[in-house]
């Protein structure tokens, strides 16, 4: 396999507010060129922390205690703020979770789409606007001119998310991090958005790190998966393999807990307590090993 676009090795993080409680426990994963890699887990598993670590926006109460994040070979964690800033927007972009708060309510859509283009590509105002319109067409917005002169509150949630996707893919970045991009949307809109992200990704050869708690969503769009539980990667592999032949008890429990709309006769299954106990033991064992050999 050629050098992966993104290679995370042994990333660890702790929460300073919570008495140094571990948030990430030596997470390792790789995202290849043109691959959509899903990071799945329940809330609190640490998925967002991985995304924030890549983007350099880890909050002050979280401390990264080890590991490296290699983007095309360069360790992002060792870059200066200026060097990281140069990469952001141009090579690495984000599709955020909540389209209602991710857009500035006081700025027009065209301003919010063109500013990045002008900053990173040096486009003139006219060229940037033309490109913005083309981008909106690419995300299947039928009346791009009207949307461009609108303010965020005048657009629906789905429209706003399309704008955000356009902004993320607009600079043709090498890596897009999608942080639960469909969670805040109606179920009917979710499918469209997923298909849109997939088509854009295929067209531009973009690598995508897709963070989600929803196995159903992840199944539709991801090539490979990393299943995360309490900051530890429990299972990793091609999507079909992981979902059809799960190796780890947690993955099995997750699958069982997911409502299957295509097979309504199967009910929701609560995770059996033995599984939870086994998981806790596994985590505790990891923590014990980590304490004895912090850099092992």
């Amino acid at each position, binding site marked *: 396999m050629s050098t992966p676009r993104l290679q995370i090795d042994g990333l660890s993080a702790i929460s300073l507010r919570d008495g140094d409680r571990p948030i990430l426990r030596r997470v390792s994963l790789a995202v290849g060129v043109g691959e959509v890699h899903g990071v799945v887990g329940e809330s*609190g*598993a640490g998925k967002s922390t991985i995304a924030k670590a890549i983007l350099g926006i880890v909050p002050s109460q979280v401390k990264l205690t080890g590991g490296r994040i290699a983007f095309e070979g360069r360790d992002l964690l060792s870059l200066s703020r200026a060097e990281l800033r140069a990469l952001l927007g141009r090579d690495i972009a984000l599709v955020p979770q909540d389209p209602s708060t991710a857009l500035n309510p006081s700025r027009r859509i065209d301003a919010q789409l063109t500013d990045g283009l002008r900053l990173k590509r040096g486009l003139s105002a006219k060229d940037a606007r033309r490109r913005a319109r083309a981008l909106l067409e690419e995300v299947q917005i039928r009346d791009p001119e009207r949307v461009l002169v609108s303010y965020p509150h005048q657009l629906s949630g789905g429209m706003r998310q399309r704008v955000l996707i356009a902004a993320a893919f607009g600079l043709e970045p090498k890596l897009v991090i999608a942080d639960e991009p469909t969670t805040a949307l109606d179920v009917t809109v979710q499918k469209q958005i997923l298909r849109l992200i997939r088509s854009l990704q295929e067209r531009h050869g973009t690598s995508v790190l897709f963070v989600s708690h929803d196995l159903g969503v992840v199944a539709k769009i991801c090539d490979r998966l990393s299943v995360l539980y*309490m900051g530890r990667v429990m299972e990793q592999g091609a999507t079909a393999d992981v979902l059809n032949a799960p190796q780890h008890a947690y993955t099995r429990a997750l699958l069982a807990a997911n409502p299957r709309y295509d097979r309504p006769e199967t009910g929701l299954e609560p995770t059996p307590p033995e599984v939870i106990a086994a998981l*806790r033991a596994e985590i505790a064992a990891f923590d014990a090993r980590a304490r004895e050999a912090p850099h092992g």
Partner: protein
Amino acid sequence: MEHWSPAATIEAEPRPPSVASRLLRDPKVVCAGGFILVLIVLALGAPLIAPMDPLAQNLLLATVPPAGFADAEPGYLLGTDGLGRDVLSRVIFGTQVSLTVAFVAAGLACLIGSLLGLLAGFLGGWVEALISRLVDVWMAFPPVLLSILLVAVLGTGLHSVIAAIVVIDWTRFCRVVRTETMGQAQMDYVIAARTIGFSRPTILFREILPNVVPVLIALLTLEMGIAVVVEAILSFVGLSVSSDTPTWGGMIAEGRQIVHEGWWVLAAPLAALFATVVAFNQLGDGLARSLDPVLRR
């Protein structure tokens, strides 16, 4: 998902520190409060503390610079003014007028404004509408102009200065208290009290008032600072107490006139005024922060 083990006990919450101890821990509050105490002492003990008679003129020693400068006279620490009067003693005696106005005027404005505010907030209806309209009209006047107008009309003297301040600034208290009361009146404990059958005045004074008091105290302290400034402005313009009684504003007016010959005549009372205003302001700020749980950061 936390590791929440059932065996973990719930720790008893530590008792929050009392108001007084909190206040005393804030260095700004301590300094400000201390300074005001010093002022009170100076005001009460002026005849004993001031080195000279503030009214004694000595034209042979007019505009003598303060100690440490050339041509200074021993005994006149801050120099003398145009009529040879000791600046330091006059500043000390000036605290009497300033503090009297501060406490009396601010206190009365607070009392009247709060009463009206309580009534407006609690009774609502036409009472509230009337009082609100009154406040709006009142606040359309430029305060300084109004105070000058009132004093010019009521005649000079401490009572008119106090009256002027009260008449102008009661609105400040009324607005705040009205808003607070309206907010409190919606609260569950008030509704509960009413269902139990407490009469309205009882509810007003026993339930609502204690919750309004913290904001009021902070506002009162701030108002004292404002009152001191208004008095200074009025005596600057010549509309306060008679020109014999030493006031900081009067000294400032004279100092302004002779600023080239004797800058200390302006500097000393101005510094005193500045320190007093800042002290009241910091105290009020500190009180607001300590007493209002919302503001505490």
